[in-house]
């Protein structure tokens, strides 16, 4: 297995191997250079770290626990399944980890407003939350399709005082929301900071968001060892843009004994073009939203339409570090379709009393499959990146009948 020195990623120009970098118009590059310089100066500043630690503990509620799924494990028979409970964070997902970092950085840069895209609304809610906490204005761009699907999150953002801008072009989902937010950002990059929602976009965003998220894996490693006396044999996370996955994976990249799985959304099936968002599984290297990664695209370089039952996963690109980890074969990228994800949603709800986000349900579904194939002395640690409260109406309306609702 190829070992990875994560400390060297990315290089000074923001490359993870051949992926990443910054392919943006020059007016934006100037701003990105400023953000990079300020971030590099800030990240090791003890004052900044103290502030981060304070909010992580007293506001987010970190550390989030690691939980052994006894009933689920018994039911499946095979490897033991553990969850890293990012769903228990304030706002219900891992997104708040990087939002606090981005908002604190915005304040240091003297910005008064943070702007971003959101898919399922988890990033938007987390950002609106920290904006309220730190007294910043907040503007969230969201596709009309997602607005209809994720209504509770839209209302939450509005209650928190954020402006939600509906995006009405194209497929009206995450990709278009990114276009729209970037456009609004470029109109005034001086007073605003783009607080991207995943480990995607031009340098320094993939690095910055990963750094803010890697606390997940750092905590989990210690907690898992406390529980079991050793490292997990397998770790699993869902991958859309890939922020929760990089959050969990980073601390384990150099642990040779740990097998790592990234689970992509197969939608209606990876063989049906336009009906999945399994970017690494089916994509080719290309450029989207200012960075190089595996992407789903046509022969003209146009991003392809994508689908997943999970709004937070349907993006035609993926984080550059994931693209590189795939080429290095350090992480195994696999996929789970809509049906299996919804099954896992109900399975975890009913066997452990934990309703997972549909995004995270993809990771749970794969862990269930993997557990079945492995002996009972093996362990699997799943990043439960978010809770499913936001999804309940959508799930019951579309899939309830099959599960007796």
């Amino acid at each position: 297995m190829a070992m990875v020195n994560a400390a060297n990623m990315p290089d000074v120009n923001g490359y993870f191997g051949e992926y990443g970098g910054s392919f943006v118009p020059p007016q934006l590059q100037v701003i990105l250079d400023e953000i990079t310089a300020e971030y590099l100066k800030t990240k090791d500043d003890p004052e900044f770290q103290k502030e981060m630690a304070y909010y992580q503990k007293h506001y987010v509620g970190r550390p989030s626990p690691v939980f052994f799924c006894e009933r689920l494990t018994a039911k499946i028979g095979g490897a033991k399944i553990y969850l890293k409970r990012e769903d228990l964070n304030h706002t219900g997902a891992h997104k708040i980890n990087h939002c606090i970092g981005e908002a604190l950085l915005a304040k240091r840069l003297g910005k008064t407003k943070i702007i971003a895209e959101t898919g399922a609304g988890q990033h938007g809610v987390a950002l609106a939350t920290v904006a309220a906490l730190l007294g910043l204005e907040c503007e969230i761009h969201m596709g009309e399709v997602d607005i209809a699907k994720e209504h509770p999150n839209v209302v939450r953002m509005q209650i928190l005082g954020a402006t939600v801008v509906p995006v009405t072009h194209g497929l009206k989902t995450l990709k278009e929301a990114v276009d729209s937010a970037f456009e609004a950002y470029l109109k005034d990059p001086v007073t605003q900071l783009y607080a991207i929602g995943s480990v995607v976009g031009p340098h320094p965003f993939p690095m910055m968001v990963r750094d803010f998220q890697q606390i997940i894996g750092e905590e989990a490693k210690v907690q898992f060892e406390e529980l079991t006396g050793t490292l997990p044999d397998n770790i699993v996370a869902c991958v859309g843009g890939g922020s929760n996955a990089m959050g969990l994976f980073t601390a384990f990249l150099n642990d040779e004994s740990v097998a790592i799985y990234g689970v992509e959304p197969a939608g209606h099936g990876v063989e049906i073009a336009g009906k999945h968002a399994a970017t690494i599984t089916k994509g080719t290297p290309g450029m989207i939203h200012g960075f190089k990664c595996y992407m789903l695209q046509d022969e003209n370089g146009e991003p392809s339409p994508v689908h997943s039952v999970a709004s937070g996963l349907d993006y035609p690109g993926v984080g550059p570090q994931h693209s590189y980890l795939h080429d290095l074969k350090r992480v195994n990228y696999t996929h789970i379709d809509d049906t299996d994800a919804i099954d896992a949603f109900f399975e975890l709800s009913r066997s452990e009393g934990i309703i997972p986000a549909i995004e995270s349900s993809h990771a749970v579904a794969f862990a269930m499959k993997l557990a079945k194939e492995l002996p009972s002395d093996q362990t699997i640690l799943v990043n439960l990146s978010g809770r499913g409260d936001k999804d309940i109406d959508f799930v019951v309306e579309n899939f309830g009948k099959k599960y007796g609702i």
Partner: protein
Amino acid sequence: MNNRMTALFETKKENILNIYFTAGYPNIDDTVTIIKQLEHSGADLIEVGIPYSDPLADGPTIQESGTAALKNGFTLKLLFEQIREARKTANVPLILMGYVNQLMQFGVEKFVAQCADSGVDGLIIPDLPPNVFEKEYKELFAKHNLSFTFLVTPNTSDERIKMLDSLSTGFLYIVSSAAITGAKSGISEEQIAYFKRISSLISSPKLIGFGISDNETFTTACTYAEGAIIGSAFIKMLSKEGVAGIDGYIQSVRG
């Protein structure tokens, strides 16, 4: 063969009018007609935009025209055929503007060979970083006699402007504001100071773009540069009047 654009900048030093339009818009086969009509009406230079759904540097007008062109069935293969067709009679310098991923997916070598073969004189790729250009593209473009233009914006540092000036093999595209295309019109005192600052720093010919829409803004821009670029305003005119409106529009800009 001589690069038509280099020849233009050698002979004409003022009031250069560069018109941008999106290929395949309003109708897929308008590209040839628009090029011929623009040359006939007195455009000095034509910038043909390659439709793309992810154009980070462009505002709503150009984005919408790109989306419409893609719906019309635009492909790069077709564009090169159209340019070949236009080149049978047109001698005006032609520049293509597109994004890195479009070149990558078409194949960079194949793309530049097609450019040279069909009669393209230069390229603008706003998301291609200067260091990547220098390392991976510069020689290749030169080999095919294609000039390359960089964008300079109000927030670009003096040091970087000088670096872009020395790397540029065409003109420098002076972006009048730090926004996206079509954002606003008119030229402010602050912008004039910025144009003067640039003039003092560079030796390449320069054209001012973003916010140029009529005779007044064109004339003002030409006071501070060799010429100016009109994009969004021209596309808006095309949306309303179609190719029949081109001559009247160009005459009104020239005044």
